[in-house]
């Protein structure tokens, strides 16, 4: 169900996609005068190398996991084996898992141009990173590679949008299984279990969130009941479905109530609809991303502490639009080819929250929903 074909081997990302992504990276490195870029973050490493690696939940401390050198365009990767590694990354550029800093230093030092590199970009930092980089690349200044990569990755190429569409489709399929299990007495945890089973049976084993269903709080704006609380009539239960297929994230959010939304929630639903229409209206190429925060203001709705829009792609994607970072939002523009998870959340004391999220691609003249069964029907 997941991909159009059943995947029984670990294979690198498609050659054409890999080549196009690399070209984008090399171009940006050239423009920024970066000789060597070190990616520790999986989304960046995947974009550069095109190699699927073991999915692990949670953050990882920064370490050199992937490196691209501009002059020769060569890529180095931390991988003890060559399964899933394309031919354009030769064996001598694969470096085994190590727990020893000296071994990391040794392979970095051996990179072509290490001794003369003037500018090395890293997409993360640990307190020890500068000293490691300075030892390996003695002539280099260390600059911000995360900004560079986030800028490169923000516009999705058609093949990337197709990949996100596939992920959205599998997320919808898996969400349907959780919705089918929905009812009084169920718990958020058990609905999560139903989602996970359907997702993996569809061939995808990598969720982006593992709290798929949660009872919204009636007395706090952004809070939830404990995961084992049985769902009762009148509870507004939010669903958050997200997964990665072939590295690309597809996400959507919904809200259900046992027996349908109660009459008391009619006004809240109306408010949600108005907010959603304003958000979609704001999704125009060339608009400042603050337009999405303005849509909340215009609707008289306080945004949740999570982003009202986050880029969808390999992960950590721009735009990143959240009420806490208004200036950051103002500096970002919505552009054709961006894909976002757009969130509308309204809440009323005594009632709970209505949460909806749709994957949206910004097009040349507006926005297109990537979900096949959107919450707000046109």
């Amino acid at each position, binding site marked *: 169900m997941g991909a159009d074909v059943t995947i*029984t081997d*670990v294979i690198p990302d498609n050659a054409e996609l890999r080549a196009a992504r690399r070209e984008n990276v090399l171009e940006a490195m050239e423009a920024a005068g970066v000789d060597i870029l070190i990616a520790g*973050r999986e*989304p960046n490493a995947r974009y550069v190398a095109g190699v699927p*690696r*073991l*999915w*692990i*939940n*949670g*953050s990882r401390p*920064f370490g050199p996991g992937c490196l691209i050198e501009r002059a020769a365009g060569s890529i180095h990767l931390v*991988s*003890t*084996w060559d399964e899933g590694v394309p031919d354009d990354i030769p*064996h001598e550029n*694969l470096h*085994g898992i*190590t*727990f*020893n800093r000296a071994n990391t230093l040794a392979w970095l030092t051996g990179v072509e141009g290490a001794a003369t590199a003037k500018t090395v970009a*890293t997409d993360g*930092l*640990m*307190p020890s*990173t*500068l000293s490691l980089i300075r030892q390996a690349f003695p002539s280099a200044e260390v600059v*911000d590679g995360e900004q560079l990569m986030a800028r490169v990755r923000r516009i999705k190429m058609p093949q990337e949008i197709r990949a996100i569409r596939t992920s959205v489709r599998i997320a919808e399929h898996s969400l349907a299984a959780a919705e089918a299990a929905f009812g009084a007495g169920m718990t958020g*945890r058990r609905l*999560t*279990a139903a989602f*996970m*089973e359907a*997702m*993996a049976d569809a*061939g995808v*084993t*990598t*969720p*982006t969130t*593992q*709290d798929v269903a*949660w009872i919204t*709080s009636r007395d*706090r704006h*952004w*809070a939830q*009941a*404990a*995961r084992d609380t049985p769902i009762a009539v009148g509870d507004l239960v939010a669903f958050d479905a997200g997964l*990665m297929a072939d590295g690309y*994230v597809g996400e959507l959010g919904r809200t259900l109530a046992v027996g349908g939304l109660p009459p008391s929630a009619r006004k809240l639903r109306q408010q949600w609809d108005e907010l959603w229409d304003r958000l979609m209206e704001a999704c125009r190429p060339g608009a400042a991303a603050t337009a999405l925060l303005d849509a909340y203001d215009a609707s008289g709705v306080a945004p949740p502490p*999570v*982003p009202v829009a*986050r880029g969808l792609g390999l992960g*950590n994607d721009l735009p990143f639009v*959240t009420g*806490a*970072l208004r200036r*950051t939002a103002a500096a970002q523009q919505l552009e054709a080819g961006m894909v976002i998870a757009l969130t509308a959340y309204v809440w009323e004391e005594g009632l709970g929250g209505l949460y909806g999220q749709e994957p949206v691609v910004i097009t040349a003249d507006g926005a297109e929903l990537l979900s096949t069964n959107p919450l707000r029907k046109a």
Partner: protein
Amino acid sequence: MELATGVVPAKPDLGRMRRDRTGRVREAMREQGLDAVVLLGNTNVVYATGAIWPLSDASRTNFEQPVAVVLADDELPHLFSPNRADARMQADLPDDHVHGPAHLDFDEGVETFLPQLYDLVGEGAAVAIDEWSHPLRRANVFIGPKGAPIDAGHIISKAKLIKTPDELACMREGLRITEEGIRDVQARLAPGVKQTELTATFLRTIFDAGADVNILDPIWQVMPNSIAEGPWTTTGDLALPLLSTERELVEGDVLWVDLGISYEGVHSDFGRTWIVGREPNDVQRDQFDRWRSILEATLAVTRAGAKNSDLTTAATAANGGSKPWLPHFYLGHGLGIDSAEMPFVGSDIGEQFDASYVLEAGMVLVLEPVIWDDGQCGYRSEEVVLITEGGWEPLTDYPYDPF
């Protein structure tokens, strides 16, 4: 084997666990003269605050990560988070210790976080941080004498080495949940089943049984008979772990299983060898027997006060003089808030490290020797034990079926 009983409570007291952990962090801070530590690493935040959220996958972890601040003069930690609070966290941390998100991956996020931090500790305070970011570097804050921040990672590494009684209770519960999942998977194991379908069954059961999150894409690796039949490796040895796919299992496949979950922020670990649709043959039984004798020889020298090298020496001797573990991994590793943490026993940190590292009571060790007979495949399982003064105690009694 008798399960550890002496020091492990039947049920974890989560409030006490959080207090004990924050206390251990503050003790390590005091030794280093620190006024505050700022923590970004997901599991470090869990350790210091007791906050549980469905740890996000790498795709959103950097832009949306919670941040913890622990102060030398406050028993309660501060949490900066975009995540939804639940009743348990509200009961443990007062509202003035729970703040909105700190987006330290953005310059504006750093600018809004710093005044809040300085309200808590004052600008001249000695602050250490576990992870850094380019925006923090641009803000030129927390810079220590070496031109970089003081590493708070060491503080957490030190604090988390010795498990509190409630952490052990959580680990045992996490292992129980994991094994409930595994029992269902083993019941489904048959020719024609896909690797991803085993994952489906596993995920279904662990969430139903109370897991917070699954921590890695479960490994059901079909082993080759010889190294040459597997992928090329940098070491010339076996590749492990390789990713699961929709590959269908066939009768006689030898599977090396490796996975883990998190329960209340404490990780479990599970490793076994299974055979699809067949009973083990004589060669395979012999491999299991040899594996068990290596494990027993290693456990015979495992106790508080033993050095890592005592374990590697015993394992190597029991294997006829060659190391019974994979060169890119280790004979054993610690387990706690991360699925592999210190102490690493037999890793490429080197023999000098192993000869100087002393095990202490309260550490948890996962021992994972490997038997490999090139041309005839091999055997690998994992055993989770608690180090005690007199030796060790098992934290699980899950069987080695079909062996």
